[in-house]
């Protein structure tokens, strides 16, 4: 059992070890004064963790993502269901959303600052903007791809519109909604770091810029990057846990 697991993760551990070795060697050989060795990154991260600033920055970033993503989900899921179900709503909104969707959230930064200043609201707005469209699109296409045989069966049993929606449409779309949430939270995490680099005084994005500006502390820059990656991984696996729920398992088996 344990041997099997080791065998499975061994190749990726090997790659990781090789990267660290090459990195270390390169820093030592080039005698770089600024670029840190892996060990300096570890001690830098430890320093931040001990004095508590790391947790404050992580907390600030997660709070912004939580609020922005939460608001986006609350709007996108009902709107996506409505657009999927009512053809008129789809024709009305879809062209606008399709045009807004390819605009990088970064392009909204000047407008965010203009409207919401340089406080917490700006990044929350940017996260909202970045995650709302993928969730709308995914939910809508989920409704459009419900297999007709299920709708026919529901019509055959003569269920009311509300039962049709609660017992057939929503459960049929739920797996797509979860996919939309995975995409949404992924984009949100990308955007929060970028947004925090601009004007804020907290968050992991700010930590990166601040570490560079305050005396080229590249050990902290790289430590922050690694932490951002790890938290992104955790967020994604957290959303993936939803795929294990019994009423959506059918979509992911086989």
């Amino acid at each position, binding site marked *: 059992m344990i041997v099997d697991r080791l065998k499975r993760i061994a190749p990726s551990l090997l790659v990781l070890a090789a990267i660290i070795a090459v990195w270390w060697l390169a820093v030592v050989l080039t005698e770089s004064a600024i670029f840190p060795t892996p060990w300096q990154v570890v001690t830098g991260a430890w320093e931040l963790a001990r004095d508590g600033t790391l947790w404050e920055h992580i907390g600030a970033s997660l709070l912004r993502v939580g609020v922005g993503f939460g608001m986006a989900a609350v709007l996108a899921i009902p709107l996506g269901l409505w657009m999927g179900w009512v053809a008129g709503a789809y024709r009305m909104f879809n062209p606008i959303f399709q045009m807004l969707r390819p605009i990088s959230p970064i392009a909204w930064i000047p407008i965010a600052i203009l409207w919401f200043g340089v406080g917490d609201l700006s990044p929350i707005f940017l996260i909202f903007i970045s995650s709302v469209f993928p969730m709308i699109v995914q939910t809508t296409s989920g409704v459009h791809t419900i297999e007709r045989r299920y709708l026919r069966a529901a019509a055959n049993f003569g269920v009311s519109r509300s*039962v049709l929606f609660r017992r057939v449409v929503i459960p049929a779309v739920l797996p797509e909604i979860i996919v939309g949430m995975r995409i949404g939270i992924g984009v949100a995490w990308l955007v929060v770091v970028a947004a925090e680099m601009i004007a804020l005084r907290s968050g992991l994005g700010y930590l990166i810029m601040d570490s560079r500006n305050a005396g080229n502390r590249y050990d902290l820059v790289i430590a922050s990057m690694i932490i951002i990656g790890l938290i992104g991984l955790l967020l994604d696996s957290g959303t993936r846990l939803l795929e294990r729920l019994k009423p959506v398992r*059918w979509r992911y088996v086989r």
Partner: protein
Amino acid sequence: MSAKAIVVSGIRKSFVSGKASLPVIDDVSFSVGDGEFVAIVGPSGCGKSTLMNIVAGFERSDQGSVRVGGVAQSGPSPKGIVISQYGSVFPWLTVQQNLMFGLNGDQHGDKAALADHYAAIVGLKGFEASYPHELSGGMLKRVELARAFVVKPDILYMDEPFSALDALMNLRMRNELLRILDEERHTVLLITHDVEEAIYMADRIMVLSPRPATIQASFEVDLPRPRKLSSALAQALREAILKELGL
């Protein structure tokens, strides 16, 4: 068999694509008695499924009328449940929830108990809490049958119901269906391309012509049950039907 469960008269249907109009059903009339088991056999692509969709209320004919239980067919309803080849058991509901799906309103009493009763009848006892993806193809078919029987429909419309199953399971489900029909008398309209399936189960067999479909021949199946397909009478009937189909 005096009352007529289904009366179809003079149905025509064409599909229009662009400027071309493709006639699919050309003047089909027949009736099905109350409690009768009628099979319609025909070559694939002859318009069998379209005919069933019209009779069950999912599509409208261009001409002619369909009367079900004495009234004009106005759309799908729980009085006639369709069981098709593809299956439509909801994968997000458990077996029991699927069986309770059609039980709307308060006139059904203890819905869970009723669902469990029919689960037991089709041999799904112990699987009430299972999800469809945990079941085999044959068991899924049983869920679909039970879900139909729970709402006590007057008519079962079966469109190649067992053709997606393997050969052995197909044979087993025929017997299961007949056994349940013995307990709960329903009118059945079966559409199939399998002549032996029709002979094994039906009281009467209608043969459809190639498109546009018309009723080409009709056979009473006057064989004692349980039927033996190897009997001389069954074989003679099979030959006669295949001959109508041009084989």
